[in-house]
């Protein structure tokens, strides 16, 4: 039986009559075979959202079912690639079609010709289970791709290929199930993007995702397997924050989803990541990165899918036992895509025209984060960091509010800080991290026993400064008593010397936890030492004149990440400077 288009409204196409389509089935629409997905079935119609421009399509053109859910192709060759929202390789599209993306073509997501050197670790007669690693191949110089038995396959191995070079379609393994059926396994398999991949068990979070950004690692840390939101108006630095984390965080794999954002930003990531060298491995950062770019001018339905494509790829690498961090920039554009399609379907809108199922979709997305024991009994994690672009920088809008409910880490970007070029513009009064307690044991045993108390001191100083500023705004700083003036001076050291971080400075762009800890120690020492002077009625003005505050504020530039021992000399330097005051 053949099906034909009955109605077209933007990216939504309707097929009339009783059909055999199932929900979320991938279909091919029109003679041009545009990718689409079934999003609604009524008594009389089937509704399909099309992932490409529907310009020029006619009523009466064919619609072809594929019998598959909308899915990703998983296998070696994903890393270093750049895909659009439905996993078409943009590099291949560019070499096929030139600079502009014309419609209707589905190049293979993975290179079919390339031969991968495969090493097996099972032999004939072994029992294998779903999720078990049966072979591996070096995908990039940094990452070994572990080839797994698909989750729904288990049984006895009746054939193993020899170690050697294979392409992604050659048969590597044959598995006989209990019922006698035989499955032939290659390096690749497909997975529906809207279904979370199964795991053996969820583990709690226990270690931080170290980003090298002081305000994050120290004040508002995110756990490996955690979820964080970065809301902020335009120009507040969402994208910069995401880029910094993508560059420097200690995840094994980065999935960067540019969802409805600027084309030039993706170009920047692509070229910058090829050039940037990871300090830990000495290899280009791109070797551990996959990019998904569905820019704002690309079809809106594919934008909706891009988030799921990204997280499916992330889960796939998690199942190999890697720690994966996914950046989604921006989830608001994804929510807007939902709203646009919902509007075309004439669904009843909830808040601000967003569909009523917005909160549940956001929840489903963030719940795919987590630290897990995989089916293959390895430990892996997916950490999610979603940017939110609230309209008019108003955090009370639905996307920000609903995101807040499902993440435990909230980095509120502040326009006022960005205007003053205080970057990263993460506002310390509005941000929070609920992972602090989970991570405390890790910080204690890996960094320093007093890490938490130092952090508490920083927070306390900033909080006191905030309260004092209310008074300063009314009467000026000059009339404050000296101990409060000192609080302001030290808080400024925290803000300028610690929280502010220069992403364009070779040393300051990434700071190891060890240095963050020692910097805090120096600031705490400075506070102690100067407080004693103030108790002896020495005015803060005199203390400031000896340049001790500038000395501490410039530590971030003066002490290289490779010479942390220098930091141990700062208490002595502070004492020497202060000695001149007395």
């Amino acid at each position, binding site marked *: 039986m053949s099906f034909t288009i009955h109605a077209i409204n933007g990216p939504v196409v309707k097929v009339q009559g009783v059909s055999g389509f199932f929900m979320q089935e991938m279909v091919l629409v029109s003679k041009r075979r545009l990718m689409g997905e079934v999003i609604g079935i009524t008594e009389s119609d089937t509704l399909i959202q099309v992932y490409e421009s529907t310009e020029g399509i006619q009523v009466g053109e064919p619609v072809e079912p594929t019998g598959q859910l909308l899915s990703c192709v998983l296998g070696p060759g994903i890393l270093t690639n750049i895909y659009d929202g439905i996993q078409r390789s943009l590099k291949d599209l560019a070499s096929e079609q030139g600079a502009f993306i014309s419609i209707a073509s589905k190049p293979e997501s993975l290179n079919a010709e390339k031969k991968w050197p495969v090493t097996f670790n099972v032999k004939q007669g072994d029992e294998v289970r779903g999720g078990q690693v049966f072979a591996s191949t070096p995908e990039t110089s940094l990452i070994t791709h572990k080839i797994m038995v698909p989750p729904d396959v288990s049984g006895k191995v009746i054939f193993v290929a020899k170690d050697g070079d294979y392409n992604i379609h050659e048969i590597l393994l044959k598995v006989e199930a209990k019922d006698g059926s035989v499955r032939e396994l290659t390096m690749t398999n497909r997975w529906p993007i809207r279904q979370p991949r199964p795991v053996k068990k969820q583990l709690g979070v226990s270690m931080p995702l170290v980003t090298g950004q002081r305000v994050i690692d120290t004040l508002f840390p995110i756990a490996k397997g955690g979820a964080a939101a970065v809301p902020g108006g335009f120009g507040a630095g969402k994208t910069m924050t995401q880029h910094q984390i993508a560059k420097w965080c200690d995840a094994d794999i980065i999935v960067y989803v540019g969802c409805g954002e600027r084309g030039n930003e993706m170009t920047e990531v692509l070229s910058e990541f090829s050039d940037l060298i990871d300090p830990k491995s000495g290899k280009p950062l791109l070797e551990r990165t996959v990019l998904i*770019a569905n820019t704002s001018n690309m079809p809106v339905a594919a934008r909706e899918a891009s988030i799921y494509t990204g997280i499916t790829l992330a889960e796939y690498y998690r199942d190999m036992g890697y720690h994966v961090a996914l950046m989604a920039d921006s989830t608001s554009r994804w929510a807007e895509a939902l709203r*646009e399609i919902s509007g075309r379907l004439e669904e009843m809108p909830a808040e601000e025209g967003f569909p009523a199922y917005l909160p549940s979709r956001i929840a489903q997305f963030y719940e795919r984060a987590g630290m897990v024991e995989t089916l293959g009994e390895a430990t892996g994690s997916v950490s999610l960091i979603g940017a939110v672009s609230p309209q008019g920088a108003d955090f009370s809008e639905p996307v920000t509010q609903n995101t807040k409910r499902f993440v435990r880490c909230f980095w509120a970007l502040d326009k006022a800080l960005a205007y003053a070029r205080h970057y990263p513009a993460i506002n310390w009064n509005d941000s929070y991290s609920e992972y602090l307690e989970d991570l405390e044991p890790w910080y204690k045993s890996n960094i320093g026993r007093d890490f938490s108390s130092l952090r508490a001191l920083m927070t306390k100083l900033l909080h006191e400064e905030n309260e004092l500023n209310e008074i300063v705004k009314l009467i000026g700083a000059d009339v404050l008593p000296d101990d409060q003036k000192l609080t302001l001076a030290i808080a400024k050291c925290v803000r300028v010397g610690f929280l502010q971080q220069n992403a364009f400075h070779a040393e300051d762009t990434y700071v190891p936890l060890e240095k963050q800890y020692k910097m805090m120690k120096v600031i705490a020492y400075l506070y102690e030492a100067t407080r004693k002077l103030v108790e002896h009625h020495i005015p803060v003005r005199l203390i400031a004149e000896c340049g001790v505050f500038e000395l501490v504020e410039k530590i971030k530039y003066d002490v290289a990440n490779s010479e942390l021992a220098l930091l141990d000399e700062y208490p002595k330097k502070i004492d020497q400077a202060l000695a001149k005051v007395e």
Partner: protein
Amino acid sequence: MTQKILGLQEVSGSLIAIDNARGAHNEEIVEIESAGQPTRKGRIIQLDGDRAIVQVFAGTSGLSRTNTKTTFTGHPMELSLSREILNRTFNGAGQPIDGLGAVYAKAQVNINGLPLNPVARQYPDNFIETGISAIDGLNTLIRGQKLPIFSSSGMPHDKLAIQIVRQAAIGDEENFGIVFGAMGVKRDVADHFRKSFEETGVMEKVCMFVNLANDPIIERILTPRCALAAAEYLAFEEGMHILVILTDMTSYCEALREFSSSKGEIPGRKGYPGYLYSDLASIYERAGIIEGKPGSLTQIPILTMPNDDITHPVPDLTGYITEGQLVLDSALHQNGIFPPISPLASLSRLMKDGIGEGYTRGDHAALANQLFASYAKVVQARSLASVIGEDELSPIDQSYLKFGRDFEGTFLNQGFTNKRSIVETLDLGWALLSTLPVGELDRVDQKLIDANYHPENASRILELHMVKE
């Protein structure tokens, strides 16, 4: 396929419904003849079985259920393009209105364009010297960037755009062109632009698409697309460096809102359609440079913020798409400062890669950073002064107040005819910083301070740059 259909079923606002339209293509162009009236064009926006919903560009007045003949052209909205479009004027729908006849067509181009593959883009890092300190020094314009001007009624945004056109060294003479798209502007504004282009002597390099305030609103939706199709052709086929000026984007968005509500769509914020972001992106994203092609497309859209409100959906969504913004400040304007570019609210996202050694000068980034930070403190000092009085301020805050006055009086206020080289701009910046105590310079390192902090020369340099009234 061409077929003629007699009559129509429904008229609602600018939309008509036509039955028996089997075989029509989504988004194709139709021609509507009706007795005694000029032929109108329209575009199919929705198909449902045999019925086609058509958006009529020139309005539906005079149409009845029986007096129309509709022809389906079988192709989408296209523009005839060649290098001859320079020095020509078209209406908002791409028809010539300068009486010089049709354009010789070297190419027929779909005005909606196609999305540019991010892989094929070249990251823009080529500095354009506009000769305006507030732009060159603090919010550098980069070739291939989209940098809008956020303004409001009564502000000199047109004057600023003209100054940029006049002073900007976008490419060498031969290869430089301007595409000007006017949406819903008053006749005198369009004339003013034309006159200024003529005075500057660039008219031969200008292609104008003009939709005046009383022209049909549906054409207004096409105007930026026509302008950008022309610009893309000139930039990427003819290898020219094109500057596109689009004014006023707020009128464009209002036209879109009017059209959306006539379609009965569910409105988003302030009645604007929920897809306003995607729609604006389909315009603004058509800027950039393609790897391996000689030309470039730089966009300066101008929009007026209703009620000076930067959180209004139009400036808000624009800011999320464009690579920064130049915000005009009414307080600066009232103080007689031109151009009144607000230093704190303005931003150029591409600046970081287009300045520094090899582009402008090694100290540029640190200097700009310090100027921003210091000016932010001026604002704090001023708000404190407004409460406790200037005399009560600490000496440091007093020096910030003076810095603020000097900064606005020299660096920002440079006048309409004054062109400063980037070196002059940067030196002026250092002269300004030199009026502050050296301990206040916390964004620059010691080496730069040693080389550039010269309080003894500051007042002489500032004197030089004070605009004499």
